[in-house]
């Protein structure tokens, strides 16, 4: 049972890390700010989600698990807001580069 949980954790975290990697590559390689933003937010949200998911079975208490979920939710909220603000600023300047 424990081995199964550990394997689940490792797989989920690796998948999450892969999303982070993809997001970072997108940030560096995409041509303009809006697509970069797209790459970053999508990948980071999913990446962090998978990492939190992978860590959940490892939490030693219910409270610990809730804290992990809370971290994920807060990051969701913050990154959504920041993405929105950046996009607004870009539109305000009238260009997407």
């Amino acid at each position, binding site marked *: 049972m424990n081995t199964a949980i550990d394997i689940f954790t490792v797989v989920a975290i690796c998948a999450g890390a892969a999303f982070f990697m993809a997001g970072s590559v997108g940030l560096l390689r995409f041509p303009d700010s809006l697509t970069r933003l797209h790459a970053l937010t999508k990948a980071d949200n999913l990446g962090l989600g998978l990492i939190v998911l992978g860590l959940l079975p490892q939490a030693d208490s219910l409270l610990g698990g809730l804290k992990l979920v809370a971290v994920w939710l807060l990051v969701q909220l913050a990154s*959504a*807001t920041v993405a929105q603000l950046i996009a607004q600023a870009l539109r305000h300047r009238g260009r997407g580069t």
Partner: protein
Amino acid sequence: MSVIQALDISLAVLVLAVAIWTIVSRDAFAAVVGYVAYGLLVSLVWVRLFAVDVALTEAAIGSGVTGVLLISAAVRLRGTEAAVAAEWPGAGSRVLAAALCMVVTAALAAVVLTMPDPGATLAPEAARHLAETELGNPVTAVLMAFRALDTLLEKVVLFLAVIGVWSLAADGNWGGIAGPRRATNRQGALAFLAQLLPPVGIVVAIHIVWIGANEPGGAFQGGAILAAMWMIVIMARLAEAPAIGERRLRLALVAGPAVFLAVGLMGFAVANAFLAYPAGLAKPLIVFVEVFMTLSIAVSLPMLVLGPPDRPSS
């Protein structure tokens, strides 16, 4: 080389690379953004040093609040870099300065490399007396009991910094308001965040102050979170900062050091020394002081970030 070691080395390389970037970058704004990232990386280093209290403080104050302050300054000072470009010392001087700085670094590195392991420590002493403070977190015990005077004086530093920033106001704006004005239009993502986040932030801050007695956390970290909540509300223009002449604001600012001082003086009467706590009441008294310290920190940090009042109160 183990995985952990490889991670440690890459973290150190990353920290240094970002630090070099903040020094050599041509654009001040980019340098400041680099510094914020640097602060977060350094807090990871603190986690690796098993100093979670410090990591929390560094992330919240060293990177977070300092970051807000520096970014807004960099925005307002855009374009001033060109004006001082002529003041750069010549290439020869720069090389010489770099060489001299390297000597300092080399001396410190030599000290680090020759440091005995295990080194000199007060950890056993702190452990022996921890029970007397009725706390579980030794860092809080050092801050609030063993070296309480330093913490008290540091609260006075915070208080003086607020006075120093305020004293830069124009005479006509004394007693007035700093920071952005309140807007009637409450649309937009930031306003949404500023309405959603503070209740969560307040709960988290209270939690961090409360567990600070026994686990990593405490007044500094909790106060910084509360301050961040307030700053988001002000930046989203949902509310204005209070006028600096307002009595409530003044009292909130001095509450931390004043209550600490009062509890310390009470020690003369009930515990035979200044800043001593009577047996059995140490933990409640320390938490009591920390509550007021948190309040003062939560109010001081936004005041420092907003700067001197720039308009009279209406």
